[in-house]
């Protein structure tokens, strides 16, 4: 089963050490055949909304930036507990903040 982990933005700017540790963690997870895809997200973003026949396109950045998703990881695991364990390891690397994991249905 697949889980998508999304991580919210924080104030702190990542330093060299964090980059190195993250790189190592991603390598490990890829090597274990668990991590399918991952990436960071541009905080600016573009919002597309529909109401009736109307489509509105708004350029970011948005005021509620702290709620925005800053990164994602798609993992393939055998159980929810495995996904939690991976998220736990990820949180240990990145420090204070918040991530969400959700099971992915499909494709």
């Amino acid at each position, binding site marked *: 089963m697949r889980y998508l982990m999304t991580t919210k933005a924080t104030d702190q700017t990542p330093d060299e050490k964090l980059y190195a540790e993250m790189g190592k963690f991603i390598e490990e997870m*890829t090597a274990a055949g668990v991590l399918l895809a991952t990436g960071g997200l541009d905080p600016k973003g573009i919002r597309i909304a529909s109401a009736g026949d109307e489509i509105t396109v708004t350029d970011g950045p948005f005021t509620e930036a702290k709620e925005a998703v800053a990164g994602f990881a798609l993992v*393939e695991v055998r159980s929810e*507990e*495995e996904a939690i*364990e991976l998220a736990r390891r990820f949180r240990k690397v990145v420090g204070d903040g918040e991530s969400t994991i959700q099971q992915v249905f499909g494709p």
Partner: protein
Amino acid sequence: MIDVRRTVDAVWKLESAAIIGGLTRIVRDVGLAEELAQDALVAALEQWPESGLPDNPGAWLTTTAKRRAIDHLRRAARLERRHEDLARELDQPQDVEHEDVLRLMFLSCHPVLPTPQRVSLTLRLVGGLTAAEIARAFLTSEPVITQRVAAAKEALAREGVPFELPVGESLAGRLSSVLEVVYLIFNEGYAATSGDDLMRPGLCQEALRLGRLLAELAPDEAEVHGLVALMEIQAARSAARTGPSGEPVRLHEQNRGRWDPLLIRRGFTAMLRARDIGGPPGPYVLQAAIAVCHTQARTAEDTDWAQIATLYDALVRLLPTPIVRLNRAVAVGEAHGPEAGLALVDELTTDRTLRDYHLLPSVRGDLLARLGRQAEARVEFGRAAAMTKNAAERAFLLRRAGELETDTSVVTLAQAATDFLARGDLDTATLRSYGQTLRRLRLSLGDRRPLESLTAQDVTRVFELSWSDAAAKTWNRHRSAIRTFTAWGSLADLAAGLPRRAETRQRIPAIGTEHLERLWNLGAPVREQTLWRLLHESAAQVRVVLSLDVEDLDLEDRRARASGTWVSWRSATARLLPELLAGRTRGPLFLADRRPGPARMPATEDLCPDTGRSRLSYERAEYLFKQATRALDPAGRGYTLRQLRPS
């Protein structure tokens, strides 16, 4: 909300390969390593609910397990290395850990083990699955898997298989053994060979994970990346290959929009890595290249079949298995027309290994349908349906057969066979024997095969495939069934191509003196000893000896009157008889162990009037003898009572 037991299990599955690999390097015995790792797991289950989850559960398990390993070595006083060296084990750099996992994979896939053991051991040690999980995936029972894993560990210890990375010439063979195991696990999941579901996705994922892991551990091996590419691309199609009710959807009818683009991209990436390494493409790279070809076509019509046929030409040179040849025929059929494909398929119809393989008639049916040979195609789909063990696939094949129009006024082989067996003047034994012959004929030629179209050549081919190495007696029995069937149906002589085989009565050799001596000293129960001695000393038929009654015996003259002949014995039997009789004066000489149940009460002459027990049956006596002599028989089957006659 967090269940500790399930968390321990999740952590274990993520770490087991590294833990067991590391421990095996320390203790040099994979069985012991697994036990120690299990101890750590038990410790976690005991302590974590009390103390809460440790900061780093994976590291906790690893450290605890390694401490136990070191304690074990100290206790076993096998300490060849200094304590500091061992202490250093607790803090191993990652690359050593990676090598341990790779060594572990080579070990669990070692060629000294039979394939089912390799598969079970790999899933257990490297995949971290429990015996129950493996059993569920392979639709078998937990004790079977437990036993396989134990046997594998024992064999590795017995053969002294070292925990090392193969190098030089042995590497290619050892690596292909690992790849074979991984692909086998994948295929068991992808094309479930039995059961109701066409796929068991858990196994596919397990194999993918093992493959991806292997690709990181052995990044310079093109075939590893080839296998990963092949599995990723096949897995990408998994959602599209079954329809709403679980029926299979053929590749060219699949909705390509349902292929998983993420896995396809991963497959392509793995393929590029394989290409970058270079060298002549091996079987997995070629199969992956074929999969890539299919995936690159935007629609089924766009498929570059000529390219695929070329790739199969190369593959068939490396891997000339009947299955690859069959797939090549499919590709050639698409690239160069059904006629060309059918010619290749027809070459395979005499291959014994494909005798019960449902895809052969299924492919043949497909090609025949495209050539407009509807009736023949229908027969082939019917045969394929009868052969497959998978329910979804069977339904699909029957539907394909049903879609083809045929003339219903034609008498089919199935109809004729049923009528023939139902004619009422055959006794049970003959009926069973004829039934066997006709069942094989129907399975090989198809239930819907018009009776009129049957030729002696067809029948000869079935005989060659099925009974060419059977005993002459068996061959002749089937032959006579065909002859009777032919006469009954007023058909052309279907047995024309079947010569009668000379039945040389092969006498099974009597048991040699040396083995007889050991037999007498086995310490068997007195009834068995007496029976065996009597058979040996009298050279009488087993049935006659078992039919003896106590009243028939003339102990003085060492002989008995039975079935119109004399059975006589010598001193060994004479010594045993009084003990066997134990004062009995009438009834069967050899008695069964228990009284018969009311439902199977034998005739009075086969019952002991004093004890109520029935006469020992030939079957039971034979079974007991076989069991008792299994260890003596060099062939390991055990002897038959007939072999007791003096040589």
